[in-house]
C-alpha cells in the first residue's frame, strides 16, 4: 500500500467513524432519556469534558504538565469573561497576552 492511500484510508475511516458516533447520539429514542439521572448526566457531561479540554489545551505539553504563555492567556481570558466581555474579545485577549509574553 502506498503512503498516499494509507493516509486517505485514515482520513476517510476517521470521517466515517466520527460521523457514525454523532448520528448514533441523534437516534437514541426519547424514552431512553426519561430517567432523571440519565438526563442530568447528559446535561453535565459537556461541562466535564469542556473543563478537561481547557486543562489539556492550556497545561499539557504531550504528557507533561507545564505552565507557559498559554496559562497567562487563559488567565487574561478568564478576567475578560468576569468583566462580561463578548466571546470574541475573550479569545483575542487570550491570544494577544500569550503573543506579547512570547515576544518579550
Amino acid at each position, binding site marked *: 500500500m502506498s503512503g498516499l492511500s494509507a493516509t486517505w484510508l485514515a*482520513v476517510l475511516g476517521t470521517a466515517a467513524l466520527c460521523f457514525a458516533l454523532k448520528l448514533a447520539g441523534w437516534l437514541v429514542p426519547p424514552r431512553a*432519556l426519561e430517567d432523571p439521572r440519565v438526563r*442530568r448526566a447528559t446535561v453535565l457531561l459537556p461541562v466535564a469534558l469542556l473543563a478537561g479540554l481547557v486543562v489539556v489545551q492550556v497545561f499539557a505539553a504531550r504528557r507533561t504538565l507545564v505552565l507557559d504563555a498559554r496559562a497567562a492567556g487563559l488567565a487574561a481570558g478568564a478576567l475578560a469573561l468576569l468583566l462580561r466581555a463578548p466571546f470574541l474579545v475573550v*479569545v483575542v485577549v487570550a491570544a494577544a497576552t500569550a503573543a506579547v509574553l512570547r515576544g518579550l
Partner: protein
Amino acid sequence: MPGRGAVLRDALGIGLAVGAYGVSFGAAAATAGLSTLQACALSLLVFTGASQFALVGVLGAGGGVGAAVAGAVLLGTRNLPYAVRLTDLLRLTGPRRVLAAHLTIDETTAMATGAPPGLSGLAFWATGASVYVLWNLATLLGALGAGVVDTTALGLDAAVGAAFLGLLAPQVRDRPALAVALGGALVAALAIPLTPPGVPVLLAGLAVAAGLRR
C-alpha cells in the same frame, strides 16, 4: 437575558475564534505530510477539531493508520453524548437530524445548551453554519500558508483554551455544575502524565458523578 442579536453575534465570534484555530490545523496537517486536499477533506468530512488534530499528530509522528484513527475516534466519542443532549433540547425529526449530526461538536452543543430559553435552535444552527464555513476556509488557508505564518507566535494556541473556557462558563449555573467542572479539570490534569494524548479529556467525563450525588 441576551436576545437573538447576542446569540448571532456570539455565533459569529465563535466561528472567527475557531477559524483562528483552523489555520493552525491546516498548517499542522501540511507539516505532518498531508496534502492540501487531505487536510480539507478532514475538515469537511470529520468536522471535529480535536479528533482532526489527534489524527494528523499521530500520522506526523510516524504512527500507524490504526493508532491514528483509534485516537481520533476516541476523542470523537464525546460527540455522542452531545448529540443525545441535543436530541432532547432541539427535538428534530427526519433528515434534518443527519445534517444536525454532522454539526454536532463542542461549540454548537455549548451554544445550544447555554442559550436563553427558546433560542437553542437558533444558537445551534447559527453556530454550526458559522463554524463550518470558517473552519473549512481557515483549514485551506493554513494548509496553503504552512511555513509562512508562525501560529504559535500569534498566540493562537492560547486562544483555543480561552475559547473552551468561554463555552464552559455559561453552563456552570449551579453548585453541582461547578463541582463537575472543577472535577473534570482535576481529573484531566492528573491523567495527562499517566495516559496517552486524547484519554485525559475522556476521563474528565467521569467527573459527572460529582454532580449526580445528593
